[in-house]
């Protein structure tokens, strides 16, 4: 059924369709309406789940670690400072191999206080072991929730899906909400091998010394890498049932491209408009949309970007003293290639500053007219 809904409601509808059993969350702008809607669904019985009204984000994640260990499908959502407060237990959720799904609304980190779109929050959690998926539209947000549980439960790792504050969280778009029977067909009930079971008592969270820790982490790494392949299978199965196509990363007019723009989140949509404009002028410009960022789809990136002359990477995030996270990791992925493309790292739209199709056009023109980047990274639209 098609409805006009905000990105946050796309998340809560997705969670409902997945028959999640425990939700634990703490309010933070711009995530709040996700959990408001979910608590209404829980209170009215529309969703047969328990909603834990915790006292902080750290407790929210700790709570779903508990419920997931007890063996039920669990969900939480947060944003920015809230995600940072969860940091310790994000590592724990991944290390404990719990298939929790977390929706993070990408919002800038303080100080100064800023509630608008910026990816630094989720990217600063890239070493926690959570699988990360970036979304561009409200439809993709809803579908990604459903696919996230399928993937998480397959690889026993938590998944964080992220989308931009306000540009998606509070913007209404047409979303096709699947029938729950279809989702049941796609996502079977969660039945973990390891869970708290009074008939088969186990101890969780024990000490693990130097003899085993190393191998345990290696296994976790290997399983994380498996998520790349699994996710492609999950996307294929999803397409068969729901008719919408997704992948670990997406290409747009990249076939014969000489310049490829790389973007994640809503900057992708404006980049697409700019790419079309260049194509109309006969200029070979394409777009690679980042979806899965942990694990890193290194081989796919090399395949898409390996043969072009120039790659422009759009980062709505900043690691002070380095630059953009996406650019840095894409450069690392391309390093072993013999005829590497020239990479143009661009920082734009920090703290929710608008990035328009004109901006992307200007940035592409900058790449076209310079043999190599003039600034690494280039801060696009910086005020004097």
């Amino acid at each position, binding site marked *: 059924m098609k409805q006009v809904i905000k990105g946050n409601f796309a998340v809560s509808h997705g969670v409902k369709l997945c028959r999640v059993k425990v939700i634990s969350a703490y309010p933070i702008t711009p995530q*709040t309406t996700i959990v*408001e809607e979910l*608590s209404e669904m829980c209170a009215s019985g529309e969703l047969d789940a328990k*909603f834990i*009204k915790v006292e902080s984000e750290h407790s929210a994640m700790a709570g779903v670690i508990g419920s997931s260990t007890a063996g039920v499908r669990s969900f939480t959502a947060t944003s920015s400072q809230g995600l940072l407060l969860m940091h310790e237990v994000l590592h724990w959720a991944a290390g404990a191999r719990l298939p929790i799904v977390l929706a993070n609304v990408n919002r800038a980190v303080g100080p100064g206080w800023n509630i608008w779109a910026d990816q630094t929050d989720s990217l600063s959690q890239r070493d926690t072991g959570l699988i990360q998926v970036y979304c561009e539209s409200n439809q993709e947000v809803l579908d990604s929730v459903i696919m996230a549980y399928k993937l998480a439960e397959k690889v026993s790792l938590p998944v964080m899906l992220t989308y931009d504050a306000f540009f998606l969280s509070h913007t209404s778009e047409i979303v096709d909400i699947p029938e729950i029977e279809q989702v049941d067909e796609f996502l079977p009930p969660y039945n973990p091998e390891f869970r708290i079971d009074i008939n088969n008592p186990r101890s969780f969270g024990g000490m693990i010394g130097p003899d085993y820790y190393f191998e345990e982490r290696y296994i976790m790494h290997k399983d994380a890498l498996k998520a790349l392949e699994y996710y492609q299978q999950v996307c294929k199965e999803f397409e068969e049932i729901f008719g919408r196509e997704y992948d670990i990363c997406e290409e747009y007019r990249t076939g014969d491209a000489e310049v490829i723009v790389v973007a994640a989140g809503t900057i992708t949509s404006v980049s697409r408009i700019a790419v079309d404009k260049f194509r109309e002028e006969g200029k070979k410009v394409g777009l690679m949309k980042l979806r899965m960022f942990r694990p890193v789809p290194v081989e796919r990136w090399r395949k898409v970007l390996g043969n072009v002359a120039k790659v422009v990477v759009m980062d709505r995030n900043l690691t002070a003293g380095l630059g953009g996270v996406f650019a840095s990791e894409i450069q690392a992925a391309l390093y072993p290639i013999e005829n590497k493309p020239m990479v143009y790292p661009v920082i734009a739209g920090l703290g929710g500053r608008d990035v328009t199709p004109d901006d992307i056009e200007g940035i592409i023109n900058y790449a076209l007219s310079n043999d190599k980047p003039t600034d690494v990274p280039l801060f696009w639209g910086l005020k004097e």
Partner: protein
Amino acid sequence: MTQTKKTPSHPLDELLRLDRIPHIWCPGCGIGTAFSSCLIAMKTSGIDLQKTVMVSGIGCSGRGAGYVNLDSYHTTHGRAIPFATGMKLANPELNVIVFSGDGDLFAIGGNHFIHAARRNVDMTIICVNNFNYGMTGGQVAATTPYQAKTTTTPMGNPEPPFNLPLLAYASGATYVSRWTILHTRDLMESIEEALLKRGFSFIEVLAPCPVNYGRRNKEKALDSLKIYQERTIIKNNADPTELDIDFDRGVVLGKFVDQDRPTCTEMYDKTCRPTDLSEESKAA
């Protein structure tokens, strides 16, 4: 004859960052009254405002620090007290006032409150309790009354709220009181007393949030004031265990604790900075 338009002024202008006005608080909100009571008490208490700092956390009340024309800090959510503790220990001469809300001080930051009270850090905590997370749109908090409706408890809150004065007393606060924004004179006098009190002082201020809390509980701003008038009783030195917030049974206001014990800095110096040591360092 030239006429100049009279610039509107307010008796507290000198204590306000006028460039930040108008404030964000909604019509009927109680925070403004709590805030001005605090500013008046700061003036009348005679404390050195040049050595006074206001610290807030996140939320509607947390905006307080941003409006006061003194050294002030708008900290992260729940951490006003640890930020303030750092300031006080670094510079014990400062008068430190924490002005923040119930959600900030007692849910996400509750841990810090009990430990600062236990240590008896010499500071004044003013908690505006509006019974919900107002800034994010009215979710249930650790102070939401039993069965009250919020956006995250649409069928009513199944959990009991904190009795904040009891928590403060049990944690070791040296001064504890509770007033409503209707009791402005008592509130101002209480804040003044607390500012001059050595040790950890705590004042709970009950305040309406008509837009988010009141609306869902059929309580308009004026209704809240009527409730504050009709269903409260002033009972100084009341037993802290009898201070639950239940307006059906009546809510007790007053000053409940006023005791003396050594402050955090005093105990620290006594244990870790024996006199001979500190004199040696002075000589050096």
